[in-house]
């Protein structure tokens, strides 16, 4: 992917890719869509201000998102357990199952791919977006999205095999 010139161009390109990902994460944590939008805007305004100093955009955006959500809950709903908002499902698993969950999450995180493919994987695998929606977001054709997601799924399963998991039956 070609790097655009100028901070506004770079920011716009990054925004177009990460905005659906961040807003989807916020929608899962904040029930009101309008509030989620406001928080997402807040994150991106800070992102634009500190754009030059950010190296890992995705990590920075998720970190800031977490802070913004913490502040939001501290302001509006102080009685809500904020840790539960971020680790809701993970706490439900115990012992070996939790380890397997961590391993799969790690496999998804560790797979070697471009930033665009990472967004594609998160949108489809985590947020259950349709191929058509992802194609519209990333400016790709539906077939390209399907092909790329197939390649990423293969890479994740290969990573799990490399970690000693021969068959899925061991995890299921």
């Amino acid at each position, binding site marked *: 992917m070609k790097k655009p010139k100028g901070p506004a161009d770079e920011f716009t390109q990054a925004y177009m890719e990460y905005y659906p990902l961040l807003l989807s994460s916020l*929608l899962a944590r904040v029930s009101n869509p309008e509030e989620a939008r406001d928080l997402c805007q807040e994150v991106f305004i800070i992102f*634009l201000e500190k754009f030059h100093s950010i190296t890992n955009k995705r990590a920075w955006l998720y970190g800031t998102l977490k802070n913004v959500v913490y502040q939001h809950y501290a302001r509006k709903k102080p009685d809500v357990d904020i840790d539960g908002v971020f680790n809701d499902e993970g706490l439900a698993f115990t012992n070996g*199952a939790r380890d397997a969950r961590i391993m799969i999450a790690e496999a998804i995180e560790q797979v070697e791919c471009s930033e665009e493919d990472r967004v594609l994987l998160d949108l489809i695998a985590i947020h259950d977006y349709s191929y058509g929606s992802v194609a519209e977001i990333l400016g790709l054709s539906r077939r390209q999205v399907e092909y790329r997601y197939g390649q990423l*799924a293969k890479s994740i399963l290969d990573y799990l095999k490399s970690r000693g998991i021969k068959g*899925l039956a061991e995890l299921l």
Partner: protein
Amino acid sequence: MSDDIKQLRVLIDTYKLSRPVSPELQQYVIDSRMPDLRHILMKSGKYSLIAWLVIMIFSLFRKYGLHVTMIQSKIIAGITAAAVASGSAAAVYGGARYIIKAAGGPSAQVEETVKEPEAGIKKQNETTPVMPEEQKRVDVKRTIPVYKEKPAPAGEKTQSKDRKGPAKKKNAAEEDTVSDIPTL
């Protein structure tokens, strides 16, 4: 769907790694992306009409599955602006030329058209013979010879007439036709 995709889906669903977004919310996310970008750029003071035009081109191409970068969008915007400017200039020039031509051109000419006579009448006209006498009258032109008298040198006038004799006089009398036009 390939086996790898199915297997990954089963794993994600089993360990509840997903945070699904409903199709309605997916569309909501896609629809709110551009208005939110506008708000962010306005709040940050980086919003301008040209920048927005470039962003619109960028998002439009992406919407239809064409992967373009911001630089490519800028180039497309530049070419589009140049094409629009040259096109409108050409249209203005052409319009002005047309108006000038229409205003300063020659006056309108009235052309009289004679309707063709009806078939029956035409046939009748064709068959009616033209009187030969009338035709002759039209064609023949009356020519009346006019003779101009030469001015004779002074003193010789009477002598020259006498020298030619009676034969010459006879010819002159024949030629001397009566003219309707008075001689000067």
